[in-house]
């Protein structure tokens, strides 16, 4: 990587401070980005990355601090102003209209004279040129909802290039990509930098920060911990700076399940439909024994949600059957001794955010004794149950009557996991259980799942984070378009092999 420290400065943010009620989200943050530089912003969730970028993009106004662009002080009042200053952002959740074409999405919001006619042909031509120039392979007339996630992301970047943005902010761009697509993205980012554009690359993954960036700024608790060339600190040092203490995410096996252990979860040729009525699971068969963690790897949206919902009885099984604890699944079970299900979107489907911790902990059992007796809810039993469970979850100091919405992501997940595991179920399904959590909370979830395995539960661990699947699973299956591409053992497989399977190349070994 080239030395970029001497390049002219594009952006400087000085002393940015932003306070929300009760939280200092950004505390006197200063950062500078130079032309031709990829500047990584590294930090856990809640470290202040998003707030800082919202300030830069005009979505939030800082309480204190100044922003300089090419040396001149500017005021960014809105995203439109940011774009006019040549600042563009690719959000984690794409801002595209799914039923419009690529070129229509690019034209949306372009400044034009009132009553002028849309120049669709001209825009298409320009888009095609740009797409070819950067090897992006986006067809202007393709409807966005038919594009792959990777293509949608490239379209987002094209939108910015179309507006000739000089400073690009990419917010956790790799979180939705398969390994091969990540490589392509990295190549493109380097290419944009080589042209003299400046790039801010937000991430909480060390390896990719190491790979793509020239300099890195580490944020923690709303403050800058360090800014340095990326190749100076070791990965371990960077990790320690991010978390504030030494960590190790290595392979952690809690002993292997004996071959004779009972099969607790069994799928036999299960086929299920997705939300739009097209097959999302095709002839899936797998077995998980007691005391075993079966990892399910795959790029997001390849049938993971449908797999979990079929097992939990939340989705109709078109053919085949599912056995949990030896019994055929028919409809939804609320038996917490049989099945614990941690759904992938805890805020939408796992918890009721406006409900208290105590209410969420009895969401599946409130209508049974001791919480309901003689037709009436027994609130004291509900609060006592919550406090007992919260003791186990290391949340002793938290008031069980506060709404779950007021908890951090990590504590929300504790409540979720605590509810589902309270009955020591024989089968545990954990679906994207660590998504959006910071490293400490991720460790905590891993520990709880390893604890379940030790206790003798059959655990199905579904995750799009390949590293963690490799770290805690005994066996791994890879899902691609609803089919199992093959089964591997984590100690016998390389990341490249699994990456191939995630992209649909069946393992023939």
């Amino acid at each position, binding site marked *: 990587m080239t030395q970029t420290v001497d390049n002219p400065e594009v952006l400087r943010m000085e002393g940015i401070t932003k306070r929300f009620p009760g939280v200092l989200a950004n505390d006197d943050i200063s950062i500078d980005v130079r032309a031709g530089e990829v500047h990584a912003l590294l930090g856990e969730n809640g470290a202040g990355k998003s707030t800082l970028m919202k300030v830069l993009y005009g979505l939030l106004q800082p309480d204190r601090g100044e922003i300089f662009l090419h040396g001149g002080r500017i005021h960014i009042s809105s995203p439109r102003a940011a774009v006019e200053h040549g600042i563009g952002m690719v959000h984690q959740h794409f801002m595209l209209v799914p039923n419009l074409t690529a070129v229509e999405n690019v034209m949306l*919001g372009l400044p034009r004279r009132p009553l002028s006619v849309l120049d669709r042909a001209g825009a298409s031509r320009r888009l095609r040129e740009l797409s070819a120039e950067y090897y992006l392979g986006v067809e202007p007339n393709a409807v966005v909802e038919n594009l792959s996630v990777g293509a949608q992301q490239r379209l987002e970047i094209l939108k910015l290039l179309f507006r000739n943005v000089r400073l690009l902010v990419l917010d956790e761009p790799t979180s939705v990509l398969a390994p091969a697509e990540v490589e392509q993205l990295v190549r493109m980012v380097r290419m944009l930098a080589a042209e003299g554009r400046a790039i801010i690359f937000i991430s909480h993954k060390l390896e990719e920060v190491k790979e793509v960036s020239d300099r890195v700024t580490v944020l923690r608790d709303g403050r800058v911990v360090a800014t340095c060339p990326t190749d100076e600190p070791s990965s371990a040092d960077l990790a320690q700076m991010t978390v504030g203490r030494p960590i190790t995410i290595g392979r952690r096996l809690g002993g292997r399940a004996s071959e004779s252990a009972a099969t607790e979860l069994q799928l036999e040729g299960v086929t299920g439909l997705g939300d739009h009525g097209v097959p999302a699971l095709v002839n899936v068969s797998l077995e998980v024994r007691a005391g075993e963690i079966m990892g399910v790897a795959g790029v997001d949206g390849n049938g993971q949600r449908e797999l979990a919902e079929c097992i939990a009885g939340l989705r109709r099984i078109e053919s085949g059957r599912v056995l949990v604890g030896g019994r055929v699944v028919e409809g939804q079970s609320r038996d917490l001794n049989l099945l614990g299900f941690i759904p992938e979107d805890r805020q939408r489907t796992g918890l009721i955010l406006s409900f208290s911790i105590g209410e969420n902990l009895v969401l599946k059992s409130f209508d049974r004794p001791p919480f309901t007796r003689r037709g009436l*809810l027994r609130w*004291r039993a509900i609060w006592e149950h919550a406090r007992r469970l919260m003791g186990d979850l290391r949340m002793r100091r938290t008031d069980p009557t506060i709404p779950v919405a007021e908890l951090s992501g990590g504590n929300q997940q504790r409540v979720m996991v605590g509810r589902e595991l309270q009955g020591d179920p024989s089968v545990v399904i954990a679906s994207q259980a660590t998504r959006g959590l910071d490293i400490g909370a991720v460790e905590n979830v891993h520990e709880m799942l390893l604890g379940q395995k030790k206790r003798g539960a059959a655990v199905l661990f579904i995750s799009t984070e390949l590293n963690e699947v490799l770290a805690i699973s005994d066996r791994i299956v890879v899902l691609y378009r609803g089919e199992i591409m093959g089964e591997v053992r984590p100690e016998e497989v390389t990341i490249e092999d699994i990456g191939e399977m995630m992209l649909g190349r069946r393992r023939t070994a």
Partner: protein
Amino acid sequence: MSVGASASVRTRDALSRGRDLAPRWGYPLFAVALALLVSAGLLALTGKNPVDAYRALYDGSLGSTFGLSVTLVRMTPLLLAGLGVAISFRAGVFNIGAEGQLYAGAIAATATALYLPGLPSVVLPIVCMLAGLGGGAVWVAIPAWLRAYRGVSEVVVTLMFNFIGIYFASYLVNLDYGPLGLAGSAYPQSNVIPSRAELPIIWPTTSVHAGLLIGVFLALVLFVVIRYTPFGFRLRAVGSNPEAAQYAGIPVKRVMVAVMLISGGLAGLAGASEILGLKYALYANFSPGYGYDAIAVALLARNSPIAAIVSAAFFGAMRAGAVQMEQTVGVESSFVLIIEALAILFLAIGVFVQRRRTGPDDAVKGTVAAKTPAETSSAAPDMETA
């Protein structure tokens, strides 16, 4: 568990309830006060003396025996129908068809009183009220089924059913061809119900009838149901996050249907009590929009059944006092509609501002909150301007 610990549970419980109650009562009271203040300014602008006008409003509603009795009579249907609307809102179902359900209840009660007069005198009004409850429930059954099992918006369907209900009642009492029409009458109406079917007057020499007691009693019942029964828990869960409720094994559709039937039944009771307690016959267009005002009653009460008593009393008082205000000060009686509308408007602004203020707070505390659908959708238009 030690005594100290259980005491602390109790305080926490009480505290959380306090937190629950404070905004529920604070914002509405503030909104009403502000509405009265701004309306006073409007009165002054039009050259009327606001002090005189408000004194007349007060005398005509709460400040005199007669005024008070009119307030209580007016608030009765508002309370019953308002409870129905509140409970449906609480479950996330927007039943705005209380007006039609009210007519359906009135029709059922009237028909029962006219065609089953042989029942014993204590039983007859009870049966008629139950018929009203059933009529309202039947009227909401189709929208409920469409909502729960066919995904058809209940807002549109219940609203349309209002017109069917209102005109169906008009047809029934039509003087020329209506099956219930009373030939020779000056205004379209049914025959007068037998006096044994009437709801008793509870305040002699006034028109205040037992419907009011039923309303207050049902408000207390609903409070207990919502807070202390598993059904109430399900209802709140469905209203707060139907997807999570579904995941937790709560039968969301059945809860929705049940809540809508209860909601329609309460509106039906409002219509029945109006006939059996006050009008003694079914008249065409007998309701001056009680079913629509019930929506405002529920909004101002922030869907709390207990607060609905106060909220219904406020609306009842406004309507009662308006007459005196018009007679003594010459302010159009429709002026109270401005006060009511401003109160709802200020309440909505207050709640909105509160959400805005706490919004970013949550976004920081719940680290993933930045991804909540609400946030993304509110941010989306801004970003698309890029």
